[in-house]
């Protein structure tokens, strides 16, 4: 029994009617199989237009509708709502796009445009004939969140969600939260004191009844899908029991190991048992297994192994036999706030980084500025502890260099370099600060003023050009550069060189992104769904992005993005269940051979092998209906509901047939 079909052709003012003969199109449409009604109207999307569609559906008992108008992205939803309001299942209404794909591109050929419009309508009608009435899919929703990364992005996102009443688990790889922000002394453009700002937020996190903190931890396995994730968290052994430890610091003194302190960017040494940073949350020492003699000399007899810290601890808080923990968190949404690393200065042998002690990266310079840092906030050069009288700050090191390093701009460096140079000049009054730059990108509120003030009030010497080489000679660092504004080659004899290294995604992000099923770009930054309209949504539903893991940015932008993810998740959590579009893949059980090709090809992890039936199932909550499995299946066992290969072949036949006839 054939469906009773209706066709509604919109003029869109003259947008369509100007190049498509809408009366002729109606006449042609009326002749098509199953069509019981066809008409045109000036603006079908207007209220009277919609009413017309509704009335005719009811009056003639239509079982399928084609609206020939603009792109379905514009008004598919409008007309589907109208149809369902009068009892027609909304999936039995389809849009035939005769504007963007017809009238706008064939403005000078009305007969051809009309013929093409009719063939588009005919093809869409053939699709509607085989469309099934569908209901939306309902998915359970666990209103808890896992935040991966405890830098400022993770902290702000977690606090916002926790304050809204949702339970949040923060997973932090390092021994304490705070991220790179904890290494930085002051903000731009207002010189706010970061330790103070950050400590407040860290305290809020620590005290929050809705936040659970997993430090020294990583995501081990991620299972599940939006609304129903199961995150397995691997926590490194806690050798020091925080319940017993009084933070007396005796263990730090007796430990015989001395290694470079990563938090201070190698500007100081630490023991194998150490306090990770100076934030309040990091008072309890942690033990680095890779440095500790007890673990490094694993062949030694147990009794001879170093136990200096265990022996000295008055509270018996240290247990070197502690083991790694696995915990599970069931959550509805995940925030990827994985952050960045600075591109390694060793990649720049021409600047002597790694070989010349007085060539340091920008984060190391931040450690010099920190009152609780290795020099108590005094800017002293690493080689001999002298105050450097000439400092060269080099911007864009490793950035904007597509041939050898990173093609992108790291965005924050222009501003933090200006800040660092200004802070240097404020501290060393008789010092000279040179800034080597390509362009100055100061594109936010008070940024340009901040840089200008540096040049005018603190006499920063900005030199446009790229530094060729830095060498150590005659007790100086010779910085070879050029001033491209005056076309002169310049050699600066400096005492300290600070490299504004490119930001790159955190080490290990490639593996993690695979675990989390989040796509990354060529530089391994996490990809958002749409840079303009879906800027914090990842390719996997329910997984959101915040901070420098997505792209380099400053603290302001990081926090904005973190709060946006929190807002997005709260919107999701405002419902009791999740609604999903039923236009997804299905499997023809009789045809599927269980080869598993679809499982590898699925970008969303929606295809799962059913161990019992040996058939590849579709996870309805995860499938986005992209059709990759449909194209890849060698047996044609995958179909997209309401976009089956049979429907598509008929549509192509209609389009090709008509176009060939003209």
């Amino acid at each position, binding site marked *: 029994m054939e469906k009773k079909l209706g066709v509604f052709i919109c003029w869109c003012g003259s947008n369509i009617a100007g190049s498509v003969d809408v009366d002729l199109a109606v006449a042609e449409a009326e002749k098509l199989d199953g069509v019981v009604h066809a008409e045109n109207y000036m603006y079908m999307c207007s209220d009277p237009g919609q009413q017309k569609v509704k009335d005719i559906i009811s009056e003639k008992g239509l079982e399928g509708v084609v609206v020939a108008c603009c792109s379905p992205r514009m008004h598919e939803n409008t007309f589907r709502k109208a149809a369902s309001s009068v009892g027609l299942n909304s999936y039995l209404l389809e849009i035939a796009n005769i504007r963007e794909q017809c009238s706008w591109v064939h403005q000078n050929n009305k007969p051809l445009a009309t013929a093409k419009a009719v063939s588009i309508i005919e093809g869409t009608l053939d699709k509607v004939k085989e469309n099934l009435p569908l209901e939306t899919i309902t998915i359970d929703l666990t209103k808890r969140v896992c935040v991966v990364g405890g830098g400022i992005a993770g902290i702000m996102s977690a606090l916002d969600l926790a304050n809204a009443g949702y339970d949040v688990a923060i997973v932090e790889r390092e021994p304490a939260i705070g991220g790179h922000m904890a290494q930085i002394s002051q903000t731009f453009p207002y010189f706010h004191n970061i330790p103070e700002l950050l400590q407040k937020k860290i305290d809020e996190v620590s005290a929050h009844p809705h936040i659970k903190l997993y430090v020294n931890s990583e995501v081990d396995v991620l299972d599940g899908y939006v609304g129903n994730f199961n995150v397995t968290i691997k926590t490194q052994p806690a050798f020091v029991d925080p319940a017993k430890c009084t933070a007396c610091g005796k263990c730090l003194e007796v430990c015989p190991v001395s290694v470079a302190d990563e938090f201070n960017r190698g500007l100081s040494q630490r023991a194998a048992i150490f306090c990770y940073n100076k934030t309040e949350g990091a008072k309890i020492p942690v033990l680095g297994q890779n440095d500790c003699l007890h673990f490094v000399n694993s062949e030694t007899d147990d009794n001879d192994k170093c136990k200096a810290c265990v022996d000295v601890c008055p509270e018996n808080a240290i247990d070197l036999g502690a083991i790694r923990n696995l915990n599970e968190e069931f959550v509805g949404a995940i925030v990827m706030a994985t952050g960045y690393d600075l591109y390694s200065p060793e990649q720049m*042998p*021409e600047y002597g980084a790694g*070989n010349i002690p007085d060539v340091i990266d920008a984060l190391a310079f931040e450690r010099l500025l920190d009152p609780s840092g290795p020099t108590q906030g005094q800017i002293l050069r690493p080689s001999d502890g002298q105050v450097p009288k000439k400092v060269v700050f080099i911007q864009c090191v490793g950035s904007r260099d597509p041939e050898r390093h990173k093609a992108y701009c790291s965005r924050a460096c222009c501003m933090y370099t200006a800040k660092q140079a200004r802070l240097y000049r404020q501290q060393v009054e008789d010092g000279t600060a040179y800034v080597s730059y390509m362009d100055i990108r100061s594109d936010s509120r008070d940024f340009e003023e901040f840089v200008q003030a540096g040049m005018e009030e603190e006499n920063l010497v900005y030199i446009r050009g790229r530094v060729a080489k830095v*060498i*150590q*000679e*005659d007790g100086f660092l010779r910085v070879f550069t050029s001033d491209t504004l005056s076309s002169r080659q310049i050699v600066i004899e400096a005492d300290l060189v600070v490299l504004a290294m490119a930001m790159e995604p955190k080490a290990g992000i490639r593996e993690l992104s695979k675990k989390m099923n989040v796509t990354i770009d060529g530089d391994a930054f996490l990809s958002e769904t749409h840079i303009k309209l879906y800027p914090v949504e990842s390719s996997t539903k329910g997984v959101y992005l915040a901070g420098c893991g997505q792209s380099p940015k400053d603290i302001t932008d990081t926090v904005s993005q973190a709060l946006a993810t929190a807002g997005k998740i709260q919107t999701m959590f405002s419902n009791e269940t999740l609604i999903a579009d039923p236009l997804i893949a299905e499997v023809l059980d009789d045809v599927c051979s269980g080869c598993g090709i679809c499982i590898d090809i699925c970008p969303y992890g929606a295809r799962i092998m059913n161990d019992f039936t040996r058939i590849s199932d579709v996870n309805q909550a995860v499938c986005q209906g992209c059709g990759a499995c449909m194209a890849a299946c060698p047996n044609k066992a995958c179909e997209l509901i309401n976009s089956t290969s049979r429907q598509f072949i008929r549509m192509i036949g209609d389009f090709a047939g008509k176009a060939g006839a003209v």
Partner: protein
Amino acid sequence: MKYPYFPGCTLYTKAKKLDDAGRECSLKLGFELEELPDWTCCGATFPLVNDQHITMSGPTRILADTKDQGNDKLVTLCSVCFNVLKRTNNVMLNDEERRAKITDFIERDYHGEVEVLHYLQLLRDEIGFETLKEKVVKPLTGLKVACYYGCLLLRPVKEIGLDVMENPTIFEDFIRALGGEPVEFPYKVECCGAFQAVHSMDTATRCSRDILRSAKNNGADVVITTCPLCQFNLDDRQPEIQKSDTAFSSIPVVYFTQLLALALDLSADDLGFERNLIDPLPLLKEKGIVA
């Protein structure tokens, strides 16, 4: 083992000592450099514009000859020849359009089949510095050597690939194998001034001065090079440098094959040191390397 060998023009004239020592040493090390018959000039510069093909016809012909004689390798001693031949070969290998233009013009069939090797590369990759070390008879004990690479042996690094561009080590490893003591100095990959010596002598003098000064300041007794032009600039500019900088004291600049020859116990009399402006013999005698 025989390797086809392209000496190049300069090694027949001004840099004869680079060539002689290289050939003699190869025999001591158990391989032979077999000179390519009827070779022509390599062109001495690789064209810097993409549509200049005529200057590549010479090197392509040399490479095609090498292939036609049944060889898949070609060894050079001169940095310039190495650079030009290697880069030409890359074009033949990777750029179909330019290859077609050039090979059609010279009426040869060549697709980049020959691997162009520098003598140093041969020592490192085919002989091995460990083997070389074993063959050393008179180690260069106590000789502090500034290993000066210049530009053409390394750059452009993506095309040459002999070693990393900013901090290479092949030359230092070579000197260590000979028992000498390589001296790190920051100018080891800077330009010597090259052809500027022809029309802007001051530029070449300044470039050479910075390199030599840095080598000396870092304790070097002698500078070695692979390149006739570098050797010429660094050696020949020294009286001029002294005129403007009276504190500057001279330092001998020799070819790496000359030191190799001494370590392999070849006679210093045959090494052409008399052609050096700054005579290295007093130093070598002082160090006990030459009797």
